[in-house]
């Protein structure tokens, strides 16, 4: 067993957009197919859902950054997080974006400091490189994405903590004067994670005493990354606590195992962001990814795995195993129901999770 004690639970809010008409499956999805009323319903629904999430006792609500697609309607996670923080009173908002390599790191540092202060310190931050398709959002060269992420993350940390104006002579970013106001309410900065399974991300997190976040993969595979992270932390002379490892995952919860498995079987093997083959292959050839140093495919070509499936009893045991194998003290959960045409199944899953699972995984 790698850890013990309470498991924190985060609800991954993906802003469910229900299109009035079937949409093309490829990324980018044509902007002209967007329905403004459906978008307004999606954001209203998000708030209604999150009020339930807060009442059920979730610790965090998380948001992420994706572009040019209705799948996760949050191209600016800072806007999403600010909107959520303004409407909810207790829950911590986990901003598990922003995509660092195509952002202005100083601006990100400023906005996160504002948000932390406005939300009275209810902010958690995850910094990441982004999925392969996002390189094309703002014309980022995929080959530079890793270096820009590392440099941008370091600049954000410096912007939060340097006491006096400073210049930044980087490889990809250059500023002669940085001196942000406000600084974060949480000092020296909000709890911050370097998100991703790569060797570089784990080592960055360890060097800067940040948390680590992994996502979607099977427990044993994600454990390679979290093991590497802990080894690197030891090399830098410290030991991360359980709360410093986040595991984001899909969960399919039902009253019985049979119901859950039957629902999962209906899931189409659809990649989250389907690019045209020529683009997909070209991006994949330029965008090197790894899990703790072992090469992995840069582009996801099928549905993301669902690693928690079953009845409340089954899922509780899966959570226990996840904590033991991955070492994660925070679960960031996307509760999904493949094939559903409305949000009722999601709300039932939420209720089921809040009443039958959450109380039992607090102290596994």
């Amino acid at each position: 067993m790698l850890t013990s004690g309470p498991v924190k639970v985060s609800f991954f809010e993906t802003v469910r957009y229900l299109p009035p008409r079937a949409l093309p499956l490829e990324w980018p999805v044509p902007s002209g197919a967007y329905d403004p009323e459906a978008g307004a319903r999606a954001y209203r629904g998000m708030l209604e859902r999150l009020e339930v999430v807060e009442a059920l006792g979730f610790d965090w609500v998380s948001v992420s950054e994706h572009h040019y697609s209705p799948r996760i309607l949050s191209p600016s996670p800072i806007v999403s997080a600010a909107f959520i923080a303004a409407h909810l009173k207790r829950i911590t908002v986990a901003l598990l974006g922003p995509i660092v390599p195509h952002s202005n790191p100083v601006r990100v540092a400023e906005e996160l400091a504002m948000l932390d202060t406005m939300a009275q310190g209810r902010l958690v931050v995850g910094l990441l490189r982004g999925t392969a398709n996002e390189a094309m959002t703002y014309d980022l060269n995929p080959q530079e994405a890793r270096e820009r992420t590392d440099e941008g993350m370091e600049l954000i940390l410096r912007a939060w903590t340097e006491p006096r104006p400073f210049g930044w002579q980087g490889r990809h970013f250059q500023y002669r004067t940085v001196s942000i106001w406000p600084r974060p309410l949480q000092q020296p900065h909000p709890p911050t994670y370097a998100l991703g399974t790569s060797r570089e991300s784990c080592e960055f997190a360890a060097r800067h005493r940040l948390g680590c976040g992994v996502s979607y993969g099977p427990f044993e595979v994600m454990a390679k990354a979290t093991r590497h992270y802990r080894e690197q932390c030891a090399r830098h002379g410290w030991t991360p606590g359980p709360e410093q490892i986040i595991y984001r995952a899909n969960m399919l919860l039902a009253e019985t195992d049979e119901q859950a498995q039957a629902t999962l079987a209906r899931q189409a093997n659809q990649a989250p962001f389907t690019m045209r083959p020529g683009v997909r292959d070209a991006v994949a050839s330029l965008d090197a990814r790894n899990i703790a140093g072992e090469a992995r495919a840069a582009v996801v070509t099928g549905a993301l795995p669902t690693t928690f499936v079953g009845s409340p009893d089954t899922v509780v045991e899966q959570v226990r195993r996840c904590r033991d194998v991955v070492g994660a003290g925070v679960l960031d959960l996307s509760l999904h129901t493949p094939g559903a045409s409305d949000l009722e199944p999601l709300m039932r899953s939420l209720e089921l999770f809040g009443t039958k699972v959450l109380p039992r995984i607090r102290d596994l």
Partner: protein
Amino acid sequence: MTSETRPAVTRFQEGHVETAGVVVRYLEAGQGLPLLHVTSAGTLAATAAHERLAAAFRVVVVETPAGAGALAALADQLGLEAFDLMASGDAVSVALELALTTPARVRAIVLEGPLAIGRRLQARLGEIAPPTLVLLGTEHDAATATARACQAAIRNGHLVLLYDAGVSPAAARPAAFVEVVTDFLERHEAFVISRARTVILP
């Protein structure tokens, strides 16, 4: 890691002067305004950064002499009436002493990874008049406190963090080092105004 294009190699000439019975060795190359670089003891060598700087300055590299007096004597004997002054690591103290004793001759100062500034000198940093650039490698934790102290105390002090560099930013990333040093020595505090062009397709 991005590779850096190397300029043509500049040949540095070695020389020495004697002052108060002490031999002070130096290396010299380039034309233009004089730039006197004081390095830590035992590190007298022409580096890639020196070669780049010599394209714009008359660069004189000198090992830490016994004191500011010897440094002033070297400047006298080389005919350096006024000059820019750069110092690295534990050589910054003698350079700052020189700036305090002969402020009119020092146009601007660059401190690279400053270390080991004594209390007496720290107390006088507020008297340093020339515009001063403090360069700190983001991996150089040992110099962080001194670098911050210099920037805070020197009236016209500026701090620039050189990403992915340690004890010697000039050695780790010579092109990046020279770009900011050259810009600062040319424009002093106005170097904070960007001249980068962003037009892609005019």
